[in-house]
């Protein structure tokens, strides 16, 4: 596989950062994992995958049997891309290795939204990268159905190193569902995923990511987004299933006027789970806007919910809302909302609240005839319901299904 795009500069920077700890989250020792071996890309018809794998994928929002409601599909198992297909013109979906061979210019997008030397995890992805997906909409193309991408960890103890590139050309519209999941409910693994998003002038991207790992898996996604003039990036992240350790802090930078970013996150942590998750937005151009909303529920795990908005241009507006619910005595939620303004005339705000279910609300619902447990379930369901503006109804329904399917586990 030709790797002409990963210039020596990237490799050198990565080598210099191999031991650089991440800014947040506990350290992870790569040595306890199986070294990734190069696996040959192979083409598999997704519907012919074992039923068990298909069921796991479906739980993460990836439909393999009837793909009529998907604009395209990409599946990577362990470190091999096993399927990519497209059903709509104007959309490209392929393994990033294939895209690198096809497009010389792709190197212009390589490590431009995420720094290769961010930490040992980005460095490891550069030095030991095994594929990832490339999704691109051509100028003016609008996907009706979402493109789906599945990163599947099937082999125990493996490190999955992927580098994804998503480009929405000018005035295009792209919806993506990414489901990250594992075959096993109990075996250890490490998922490292770099995702770089480029949203060109007037383009609109919704990115819905569902994580369904297991209590032994550690996850370190590294995401960067660059949004040009009048562009929109809408991210929805859902984690309703246990994971051992997750740390991510995706960063979006609005570089063109009137660009808009929204991050919605729904996080749950059971006993043994440790999450350090946030969203970071830099408003660098005039009249750019952002909204970061997170809902965190712990039934015994530890959650650090971060948020950071920085306003560096006139007339920018940003709001950060972080709410946490502690359903069991042992759980910890630590909300860290941060705002930074560097000039007059900007409007940044935040609200954060951490608590238990309010007894007054439970009793109010009980006075309408709901039992105590029905009342608590209704309140939790409401808490998890983040109204997402701009999401197509189909995606809204899928997101709701993913949340509904898991919320009973909380009660």
């Amino acid at each position: 596989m030709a790797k002409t795009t990963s210039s020596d500069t990237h490799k050198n920077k990565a080598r210099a950062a191999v031991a650089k700890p991440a800014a947040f989250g506990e350290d992870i020792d790569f040595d306890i994992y199986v070294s990734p071996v190069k696996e040959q890309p192979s083409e598999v018809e997704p519907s012919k995958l074992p039923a068990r794998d298909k069921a796991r994928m479906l739980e993460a929002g990836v439909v393999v049997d009837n793909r009529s409601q998907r604009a395209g599909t990409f599946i990577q198992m362990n470190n091999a891309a096993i399927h990519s297909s497209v059903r709509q013109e104007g959309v490209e979906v392929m393994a990033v290795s294939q895209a690198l061979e096809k497009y010389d210019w792709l190197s212009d997008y390589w490590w431009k939204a995420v720094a290769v030397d961010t930490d040992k995890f980005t460095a490891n992805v550069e030095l030991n990268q095994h594929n990832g997906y490339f999704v691109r909409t051509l100028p003016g193309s609008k996907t009706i159905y979402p493109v789906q991408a599945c990163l599947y960890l099937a082999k125990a103890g493996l490190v999955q190193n992927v580098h994804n590139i998503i480009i929405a050309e000018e005035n295009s519209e792209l919806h993506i569902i990414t489901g990250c999941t594992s075959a096993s409910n109990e075996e250890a693994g490490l998922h490292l995923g770099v995702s770089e998003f480029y949203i060109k002038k007037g383009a609109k991207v919704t990115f819905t990511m569902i994580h369904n790992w297991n209590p032994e898996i550690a996850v370190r996604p590294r995401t960067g987004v660059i949004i040009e003039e009048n562009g929109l990036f809408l991210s929805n992240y859902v984690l309703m299933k246990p994971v051992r350790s997750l740390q991510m802090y995706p960063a979006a930078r609005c570089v063109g006027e009137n660009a808009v970013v929204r991050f919605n996150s729904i996080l749950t942590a059971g006993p043994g789970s440790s999450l350090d998750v946030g969203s970071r937005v830099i408003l660098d151009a005039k009249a750019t806007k952002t909204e970061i909303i997170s809902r965190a529920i712990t039934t015994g795990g530890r959650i650090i919910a971060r948020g950071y908005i920085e306003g560096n241009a006139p007339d920018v507006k940003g709001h950060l809302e972080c709410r946490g619910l502690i359903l069991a005595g042992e759980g910890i939620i630590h909300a860290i909302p941060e705002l930074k303004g560097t000039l007059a005339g900007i409007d940044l705000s935040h609200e954060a609240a951490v608590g238990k279910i309010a007894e007054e609300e439970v009793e109010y619902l009980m006075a309408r005839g709901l039992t105590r447990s029905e009342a608590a379930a209704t309140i939790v369901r409401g808490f998890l319901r983040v109204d997402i503006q701009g999401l197509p109804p189909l995606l809204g329904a899928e997101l709701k299904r993913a949340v509904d399917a898991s919320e009973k586990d909380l009660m």
Partner: protein
Amino acid sequence: MRDVALSIEQLTVEVEGREILHSVNLEMRLGDTQVLFGPNGSGKTTLLMAIMGFPKYRVTKGKITFKGQDITMLPLDERARLGIGMSFQRPPVVRGVKMRDMVTACLRGRESEEGINQLAEQANLTDFLDREMNYGFSGGEIKRSELMQLLAQRPTLTLIDEPESGVDLVNIALIGDLINTLLEKDCPIPERRCMGLIITHTGHILDYINARTGYVMCDGVIGCEGDPREILATIREKGYQECVSCFRRRRTSGG
């Protein structure tokens, strides 16, 4: 004579260790609308909360009988399912829970899209069905929302706490209509299957609703009982101060 559907005998209620109601007696029959007057802090809301069964309002003596069943120790939600409903004066905001969800819950299996829309139309809340419960609602919107939920719930006994507080003149007529519907005021009294106990501080709601019996509550006891309009006339003329002094005079002389 219609049967007694609610009977409160010698009811003594404590809130956070402090006795608020002392030996209150009250009776209601199906078809009744009764009004509870009283100065602020006299115990009116405590009485409603105790009938509804909120755990914070602890009955230390006495008995509440509803539809022939002793409900003194019955939990809040069981009372609701037995047919007691309440319009809250200041209901909590429940983030993320939509008004549609609440109305659906109140209908307990009888829900239909059409029925919910009809109720919303009746309460002039069509645009509110997908709003979060009580979040950013005005005074009038809160009252209409409370009454709409009760119309869905259809309780035998409706407890209404200050339906006119914080409500403008346009809203109060509609609120009066909703209460009249809820209390089946268009049915002849003997055919009504429900009854209402309404707290009013100012009495404005009586311009819209007919009530047969009025009580004045003072210092946690029911001080007097009579025609609500007559009571209201006295309160309007002389203020609650007169009720309080009258009650204290009688208590002293009566021993």
